[in-house]
């Protein structure tokens, strides 16, 4: 089998990359490989609204947002294969398997990695206790309720205040369950402020910051969890334990980019994001292999996924045409005080489409601070922000003309007043 561009994963990143690549060059043969039985990825189970404010200027639910992209595939001649699992990726071929073709290889000129991320499971959290039924990741519960139509339980405790946990607190409540508490290990929430208001405050669900689960009880089915307050080193404080009767524990404790395929093909991984190191064109350390969406770094907003993926898709299309990556001056982007990572990691000036968007996350909560951008030590941007938290991605936009005489490095830092 042959294709110009193979896109691995048909979720929001894969769909946006495919559509943008086809619009860049309509003669390209683009193939999406998706392991699920429908396109749309995680958007299918995200039935809540709030998607698309940036992309479509209206507020859509997840399935509606996905449908806007899917509707464009046929017209653009983009092919896709469902129920197809990719086994191996190289720069000019992708090997996959499904029940009709068996194992097959697609020869291609470019690959876009769009595999998304996975939830951190109980086994990775080291929660002591028994192993009863009733412990789910929040995303599994979301799929059970919203797609399969099953309620995982009636009395719920949620560990972790990431957005999926907050959304599920509301969803379980709407369907008649009692959500007794949301516990968060950190002294701040990992979710968006608006979700705390509309998912917890609206239903009087308590958010217990600096709390964690220290025991899980129940032989066949979960009967209770023991929670405790933690100190500043995240260690449980003896004497603060309280037992909460419940039949369900949902875990919303972080997302991990799913990079098994990227690693096996030798793409360089950034330890801060667990995703590939990419340049301004979203190209990885292997020429012709691009990455975008949550496989690259975990996003809060699908709109930003679509925007970045569009850029990755267009870059892949241009790569196929030129058969080479751009040459020319390279600018390194360095993480200064308070900045945990940036995407991209470096910029080839000749590869810039237009303005340079640098997205990053803070390592801590900052109040009344400044985001500074320094080029070769000289401050180019100094912007005040009332609140910066690790749970909300930040961005700076640099104009292309500001990079006309390119610096050798750009430093991004957060300073307190």
């Amino acid at each position, binding site marked *: 089998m042959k294709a110009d561009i193979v896109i691995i994963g048909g979720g929001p990143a894969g769909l946006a990359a495919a559509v943008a690549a086809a619009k860049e060059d309509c003669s390209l043969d683009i193939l999406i490989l998706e392991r699920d039985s429908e396109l749309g990825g995680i958007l299918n189970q995200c*039935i809540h609204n709030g998607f698309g404010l940036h992309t479509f200027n209206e507020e859509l639910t997840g399935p509606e947002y996905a449908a806007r992209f899917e509707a464009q595939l046929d017209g653009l001649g983009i092919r896709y294969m469902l129920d197809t699992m990719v086994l191996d990726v190289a720069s000019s071929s992708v090997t996959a398997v499904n029940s009709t073709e068996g194992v097959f290889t697609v020869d291609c000129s470019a690959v876009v990695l769009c595999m998304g991320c996975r939830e951190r499971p109980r086994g990775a959290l080291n929660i002591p206790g028994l192993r009863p039924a009733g412990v789910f990741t929040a995303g599994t519960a979301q799929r059970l*309720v919203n797609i399969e139509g099953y309620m995982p339980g009636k009395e719920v405790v949620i560990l972790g205040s990431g957005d999926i946990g907050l959304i599920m607190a509301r969803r379980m409540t709407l369907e008649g369950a009692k959500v007794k508490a949301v516990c968060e290990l950190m002294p701040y929430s990992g979710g968006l402020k608006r979700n705390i*208001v509309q998912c917890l405050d609206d239903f009087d669900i308590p958010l217990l910051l600096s709390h964690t689960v220290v025991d899980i009880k129940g032989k066949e089915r979960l009967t209770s969890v023991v929670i405790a307050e933690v100190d500043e080193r995240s260690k449980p404080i003896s004497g603060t334990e309280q037992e909460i009767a419940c039949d369900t524990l949902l875990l919303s404790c972080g997302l991990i980019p799913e990079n098994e395929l990227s690693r096996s093909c030798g793409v360089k991984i950034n330890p801060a994001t667990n995703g590939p190191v990419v340049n301004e064109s979203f190209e990885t350390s292997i020429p012709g292999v691009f990455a975008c969406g949550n496989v690259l770094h975990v996003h809060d907003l699908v709109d930003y996924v679509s925007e970045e993926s569009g850029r990755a898709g267009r870059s892949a299309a241009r790569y196929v045409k030129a058969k080479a990556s751009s040459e020319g001056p390279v600018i390194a982007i360095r993480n200064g005080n308070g900045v945990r990572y940036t995407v991209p990691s470096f910029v080839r000036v000749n590869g810039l489409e237009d303005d340079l968007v640098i997205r990053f996350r803070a390592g801590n909560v900052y109040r009344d601070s400044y985001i500074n951008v320094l080029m070769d030590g000289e401050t180019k941007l100094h912007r005040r922000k009332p609140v910066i938290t690790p749970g*909300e991605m930040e961005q700076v936009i640099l104009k292309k003309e500001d990079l006309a005489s390119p610096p050798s490095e750009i430093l991004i830092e957060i300073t307190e007043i």
Partner: protein
Amino acid sequence: METRELTCINCPLGCRISVTMEDGNIISVTGNTCKRGYLYACNEVRMPVRTVTTTIKVTGGEVDRVSCKTKEPVPKDKIFEVMEAINKASCKAPVAIGDVLIEDCAGTGVAIVATKAAGNV
């Protein structure tokens, strides 16, 4: 005089808005960064509304349920009545995105529309 502190839920910026009121009248709105935030704050102190998103049973379809939402936001205190009405109802396949599944849900005057398509078996 009474001041209420709100967090705007219109977009992920989550602006903190202060609304000052006297005798039920809004005297000032501060902290919002856009017009939507102003409207949110005014609604929130007078009559808070929310869009309800859930799923509804489908008969004769390739799937057993599709996702749906209230076409417009409904009063916050009607959320559970709206949920009850949707959970009692069902719709017939095929369903297209935007199809009206319930005309007037729980006396709110607001329709329930499909947010996902479902073909026939």
